[in-house]
């Protein structure tokens, strides 16, 4: 741990002198003089980092928090500047945002919609946060996004992969840099076709909640377009820990590919169980049985250990990427904390930078100005190649990584290898694509 890192501490210390924010929080005030919610009036601006600190995603949340602290350090001119140096937009000066020192407050989402909203509300009402970011699940992201819309602050989503976040639940004040279920399907399909051919029978095991469903729908659609059949889609309870009774029927189903639409602990357990049942040694229809995990997370892959070897999936970003942005980020993160960042850390860092940059370019913290600056914004140098923040749904479009569990890892972090960088054009879709239909951005809300 780097608790005794002097340079970092000094930054933190000075950054928190007035931790509670200088401006009087004016959120939800019907009649207020401020132009928008929590308008920063003093020499500093407060951002709210709302991450899971307890519960199953606590480690992911801790990594997100590290990224945020790093981003704040860079914004305030500390450290080596990280991706600020490779970012295509040069609006950020390293003197805070619009000359105001960046301060932050943290909270615990507990990976529960209620708790996440309570935590975000306290940041807005008590600490005067002008932007909320973070989270490690789609349910939480959508719930907090809704809150920020009502409160009139910007929400920069953390790790959220459900189509709904920028689909039917999209909001004008909310932005997502992370990729989504549709993109996973679109990126994986060609790779799967090359590896396993077009004549395959897939069996889906899906976590029984909204994220699982949207991913199942996306992957099934993408693979069926290749000519694969889907023999069964089975929903598994979120609380399940032992997946044996869901894996067993796969054995005699005639399927030769198992798709695990699980994340986190569910993924670790279902994958471990599937391997236990010898699925990987099985030969069905004259073909080797294969397992696919559409959404990979390196932190979680560690829990499944040996079992991930050779299994394909997709991720938003991986630390082994060799572009300048990724290298710069890995270097400054690794130097500070002693290990490489996760994809959750990456997306959170980038979201903070994008927000700061948008404010800088807009010349105002007003959410509506920020929305305008982010909509349709094209940028590069943040690790995913040229990227577009699409105006219609506030979703980032960028390259997607197809990865595979590495056969011979050289270290405990070296679990995945990038198989293919799927170009952006291949994962794009129309804003009114049926999987994303039904939502309405609404108008940006500056509160106040």
């Amino acid at each position, binding site marked *: 741990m780097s608790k005794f890192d002097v340079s970092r501490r000094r930054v933190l210390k000075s950054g928190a002198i007035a931790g509670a924010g200088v401006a009087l929080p004016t959120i939800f005030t019907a009649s207020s003089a401020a132009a928008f919610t929590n308008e920063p009036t003093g020499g500093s601006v407060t951002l709210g980092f709302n991450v899971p600190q307890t*519960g*199953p*995603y*606590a*480690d*992911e949340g801790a990594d997100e928090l590290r990224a945020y602290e790093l981003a704040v350090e860079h914004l305030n001119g500390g450290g080596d500047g990280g991706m600020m140096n490779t970012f295509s937009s040069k609006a950020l000066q390293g003197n805070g945002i619009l000359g105001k020192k960046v301060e932050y407050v943290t909270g615990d989402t507990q990976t529960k919609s209620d708790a996440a909203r309570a935590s975000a509300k306290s940041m807005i009402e008590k600490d005067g946060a002008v932007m909320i970011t973070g989270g490690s699940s789609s349910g939480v992201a959508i719930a907090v996004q809704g809150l920020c819309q009502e409160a009139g602050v910007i929400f920069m989503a953390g790790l959220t992969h459900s189509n709904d976040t920028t689909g039917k639940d999209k909001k004008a004040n909310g932005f997502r840099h992370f990729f989504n279920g549709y993109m996973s399907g679109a990126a994986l399909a060609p790779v799967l076709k090359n590896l396993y051919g077009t004549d395959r029978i897939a069996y889906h095991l899906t976590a*029984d909640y909204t994220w699982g469903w949207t991913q199942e729908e996306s992957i099934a659609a993408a693979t069926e377009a290749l000519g694969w059949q889907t023999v*069964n889609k*089975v*929903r*598994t*309870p979120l*609380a399940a*820990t*032992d997946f*044996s*009774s*869901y894996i*067993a*029927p796969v*054995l*005699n189903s005639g399927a030769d590919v198992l798709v695990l639409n699980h994340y986190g*602990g569910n993924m*670790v*357990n279902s994958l*471990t*169980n599937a391997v*236990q*049942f*010898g699925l990987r*040694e099985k030969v069905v229809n004259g073909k080797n049985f294969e397992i696919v995990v559409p959404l990979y997370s390196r*932190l*979680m892959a*560690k*829990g*499944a*250990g*040996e*079992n991930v070897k050779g299994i394909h999936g997709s991720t938003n970003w991986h*630390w*082994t990427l060799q572009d300048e942005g990724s290298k710069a980020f*890995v*270097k400054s993160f*690794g*130097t500070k904390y002693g290990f*490489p960042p996760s994809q959750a850390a990456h997306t959170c860092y980038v979201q903070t930078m994008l927000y700061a940059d948008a404010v800088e370019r807009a010349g105002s913290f007003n959410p509506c100005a920020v929305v305008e600056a982010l909509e349709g914004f094209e940028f590069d140098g943040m690790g995913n190649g040229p990227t577009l923040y699409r105006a219609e749904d506030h979703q980032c479009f960028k390259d997607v990584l197809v990865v595979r569990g590495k056969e011979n890892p*050289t*270290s405990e*972090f*070296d679990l995945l290898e990038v198989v293919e960088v799927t170009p952006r054009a291949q994962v794009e879709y129309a804003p009114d694509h049926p999987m994303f239909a039904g939502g309405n951005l609404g108008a940006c809300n500056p509160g106040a």
Partner: protein
Amino acid sequence: MDAILLQILNGLDKGSAYALIALGLTLIFGTLGVVNFAHGALFMIGAFCAVTLQRILNLSFELVDETQKDFLGNPLKVKTPYVEAWFGPDIGGSIIDWAVPLAILFAIPIMIGVGYVMERGLIKHFYKRPHADQILVTFGLAIVLQEVVKYFYGANPIQTPAPDALNGVVNLGAAIGMDIVYPVWRVVYFFFAVLIIGGIFSFLQFTTFGMVVRAGMADRETVGLLGINIDRRFTIMFGIAAAVAGLAGVMYTPINSPNYHMGMDFLVLSFVVVVVGGMGSLPGAVLAGFLLGVLESFASMNEIKSLIPGIDQIIIYVVAIIILLTRPRGLMGRKGVMED
């Protein structure tokens, strides 16, 4: 047919874990009259005994290898476990490989110790207190224990594989001309559970110690009047119950990677199991454990799920409600225990 047999196996396997935890809970409840919400935490601590042993065996010294680079471009530090250095890569490697079975030996003294300290240090003072207080204090303890584990081991699951030799699958149906492929370790787990359950029952049935404990479970005061120091024996029973939960945890680690909240995941379920079995009944707890395990497995079959959507989400609770409404004191409960 194969599918049904497979699900029965799955059910027995799940049931083994439920039964072992419920058995320990019932031992504690039956002997001490204490509702122990920290029992799930004991299961979790057992699992982390395996993790700890694995870590100890993997303690390594580092050599800097200039030819390889780590992710920041610095020279790579190559780690070699001491065990491998001492015993050679072959023997050392297989010692590491057998970490989970070895952890049984490691866990027994630790769990008995944990149980002893818990009983003497905390639970003892709560015998005369209302059940609500017992629940609150043991729940607090459970939170503390799991947070401490989380502080040292993190929140993510940690892989603790079974030995390679026991990692594959075995065709259980070969003898009867059927194809029932089942993971070896799960078979091991089932027989291990049966062994432990059998051990506990014969211990209670055939030893003087067990006889006194059983008598004490039935009527504590009378046994106390006979001049037998029942408290000391109950303390030992608490240690044994902790060890049972711990061993269930150790052996469970290869089935699912352990994490700090696995105890809470099992806690509610095992309480349902205990109550369905009937408060204070050891055979009831075991029976209910296996019954609920098997029913849960059946409910997750696709044929059943398509008939009643979502049945696998609620089957345990539905069964619990039906059993409690038809049999007032669960399957084998005694009258007057925890009814007020």
